[in-house]
């Protein structure tokens, strides 16, 4: 009797569990209110403000030392694993190298479905066959591909629902960033600053895949800003968009950052400010119309893309965007009008020693690359890069991965040829006695003052997560995933993942248990209390 009951009980349990793993619709309202459901991670940066902050506090400064690995998911792919997964009601959605995507049971890491796009052999991703994550709305997840398509997958099955061609990848375009869903639109940008593309931001209807608007990050003839490009250089001027933007419902603006002008190290032939390369853009999400812009680095010759997540911070009645830029300066900008409030270095900077009337750092003439090579700090990889910073509303501090590295910048003239490398740059090892290093820095956005620093043995490509447990999490190039006290920078725990971390961590909860997840090597690791 008893024996027979077990399969029945198992069946009933399964039948009961199935709806519990049901795929609740993610509505635009849920995305707006993402901070009200901290058990879920509904978009790349966790919320529309770009905070990468989790309100979960089960793991906290008193118990973080006892964190243990819970499960790992292997993509079995080589190269850099840059994803930040989403978690919605117990299901984790992630991406992997070569346009893999997957849905996992977030409790166990067991796959629900796995998808991989068949990519053409001649794609041109500049910097690895990488992808940073998905966006979700309704019953679909959205993926940008290395062959420059935007596709919607059925969140329940991984089947392709629609497939939109953003642009011909053979011209040097690719897509590596996680899209951002705003209302019923999937907003996404393109990479290709090493191939002389003309960058843009697109919005697609989430239901049909129809393109609703496109904003070119380089103004065409007759548009304001077009005069900042010499001759025809605007046609191949780069200004890619390869990191996810943020959205401010109060001012109905979506903020995106752009990358380098092409060719990156060779200003010759593209005289002018080169708008809107290396800029922060405020767009109307319904129309894609430009509200205002702020250019961090004018006429860039050092590949200092501004592709860092812009972070929305409110201080009293001030509505700000704070931005630790690849060029080494920490900018505070009024997000209602794009006016600069302050700019202060947060890492070693040698390219500027003065500011213009608006308070913007001005480049020294001597910092321009020469044929023989010119030593400049920060180096080509920047004082930081695409790895996400975090803002913790509890400590009111901004945490950023800094890279202390200087490079010898030189030029290598390259003729433009469609779809071919077009960066005009060459780097040589610098003769510094000391090796490069890195740090996690806690900055007070109100003053620009550094509160603490945690030194990395070598520069890392890991982003940072902060949590309501009083913690910040980051990874290092030596393979450690580390928990620190957000107030003091004291290390509380670490785990050796076995490979450098090239991703930004996140946190979620299921069945009342908090997890922290990070991608390293070929594996997505999750950690929780025992």
């Amino acid at each position: 009797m008893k024996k027979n009951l077990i399969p029945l009980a198992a069946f009933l349990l399964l039948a009961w569990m199935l709806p519990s793993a049901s795929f609740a619709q993610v509505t635009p309202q849920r995305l707006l209110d993402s901070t009200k459901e901290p058990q879920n991670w509904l978009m790349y940066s966790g919320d529309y403000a770009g905070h990468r902050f989790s309100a979960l506090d089960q793991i906290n400064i008193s118990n973080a030392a006892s964190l243990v690995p819970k499960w790992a998911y292997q993509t079995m792919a080589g190269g850099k694993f840059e994803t930040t997964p989403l978690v919605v009601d117990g299901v984790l959605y992630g991406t992997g190298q070569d346009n893999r995507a997957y849905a996992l049971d977030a409790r166990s890491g067991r796959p629900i479905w796995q998808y991989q796009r068949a990519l053409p052999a001649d794609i041109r991703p500049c910097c690895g066959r990488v992808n940073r994550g998905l966006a979700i709305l309704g019953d679909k997840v959205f993926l940008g591909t290395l062959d420059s398509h935007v596709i919607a997958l059925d969140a329940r099955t991984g089947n392709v629902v629609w497939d939109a061609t953003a642009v011909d990848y053979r011209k040097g375009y690719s897509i590596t960033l996680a899209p951002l869903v705003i209302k019923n639109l999937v907003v996404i940008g393109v990479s290709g600053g090493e191939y002389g593309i003309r960058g843009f931001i697109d919005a697609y209807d989430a239901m049909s895949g129809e393109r609703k608007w496109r904003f070119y990050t380089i103004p065409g003839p007759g548009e304001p800003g077009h005069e900042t490009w010499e001759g025809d250089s605007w046609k191949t001027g780069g200004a890619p968009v390869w990191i996810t933007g943020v959205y401010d419902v109060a001012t109905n603006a979506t903020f995106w950052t752009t990358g380098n002008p092409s060719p990156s190290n060779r200003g010759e032939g593209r005289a002018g400010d080169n708008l809107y390369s290396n800029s922060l853009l405020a767009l109307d999400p319904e129309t894609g119309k430009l509200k205002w812009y702020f250019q961090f680095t004018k006429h860039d010759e050092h590949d200092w893309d501004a592709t860092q997540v812009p972070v929305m911070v409110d201080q009293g009645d001030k509505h700000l965007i704070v931005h630790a830029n690849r060029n080494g300066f920490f900018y505070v900008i009024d997000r209602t009008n794009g006016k600069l409030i302050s700019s202060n270095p947060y890492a070693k900077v040698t390219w500027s020693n003065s500011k213009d009337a608006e308070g913007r750092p001005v480049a020294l003439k001597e910092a321009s690359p020469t044929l023989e090579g010119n030593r400049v700090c920060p180096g080509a990889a920047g004082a930081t890069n695409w790895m996400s910073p975090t803002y913790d509303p509890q400590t009111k501090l901004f945490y950023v991965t800094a890279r202390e590295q200087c490079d010898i910048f030189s030029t290598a003239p390259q003729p433009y040829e469609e779809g071919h490398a077009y960066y005009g740059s060459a780097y040589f090892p610098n003769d510094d006695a000391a090796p490069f290093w890195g740090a996690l820095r806690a900055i007070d956005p109100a003053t620009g003052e550094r509160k603490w620093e945690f030194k990395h043995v070598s520069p890392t490509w890991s982003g940072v997560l902060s949590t309501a447990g009083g913690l910040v999490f980051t990874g290092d190039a030596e393979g450690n995933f580390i928990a620190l006290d957000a107030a003091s920078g004291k290390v509380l725990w670490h785990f050796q993942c076995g490979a450098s971390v090239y991703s930004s961590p996140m946190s979620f909860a299921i069945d009342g248990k908090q997890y922290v997840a990070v991608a390293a090597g070929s594996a997505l690791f999750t950690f929780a209390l025992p």
Partner: protein
Amino acid sequence: MRVVKEACLPDPIKQPQAWAAALFTCTLMLMVGVFTASLKAQDKNPLAGDPKAAKLGESQFRANCAFCHGLGARGGGRGPDLTRAQKRHGNADADLFRTINEGVPGTAMPPNGATQQGVGMTAEEIWQVISYIRSVQVKAPAQPAGNAAHGKKLFYGSAACFTCHMIQGKGGRLGPDLSTTGSARSTDYLVESVRNPSRRLAQGISEAMKEFSQEYETVTVVTTDGTKFTGVVLNEDHFTLQMMDTREQLRLFEKGKLRSYEKSRESLMPAYDQKALSDKDLQDILAYLLEVTAQ
């Protein structure tokens, strides 16, 4: 042909028209395949002798290769001098193409073809780089200036290099193995390494995916019981240190549990000045290093 039939052609009896169409397509594919293969993996550089190709190749070289192989291809800290007539991984055009396109597993040479890591180069761009290398390389194999046999005697004798360096399994392991160094480093680099070893430390092993290799930094640790160890850093992260001490003992420490821990970029290798090693003897040792590399 069998493979093509299985993979490409429908059944000729059930679908005669489809079969005919597919046969045409398959033939076309085969022709395209052969054509593409001839472009990529041919034995001879299709751009050979074209001065314009060499000029474009110089630009490509600066952008993609000079970081390791130095300006003018004369060798840098990591990559060998490519102006030498002999190349370790094959000197034929096809060898150079393969080396550049696919990299050399087990060395610092990465694959550089398009869609590999980094921006990469197309087949045409790789041939341009090969044209450039041909334009700067010396015509005849370099005759080693020194006496390799005497160099070997010095290496294992009075110069005592073998105390810390190994060649083909014989010697110490505190310093880098020198079995292939003769061709992997430029002569200037090797001379500097002997005369002024602290100027640029050798690069050691590195974790997979890590951008910067560990170097042979000197380290001195004192444990809580007062024991002191000096050696070279093999591997280090924020929390731990793996070192080899001067007795060739491998040691792992948790940094937080040490009384003290000090790293220095003064190499443990003594600087060999003219008194310790004359220019002529140094040339003999370099000749020996080149000779063993060629074996």
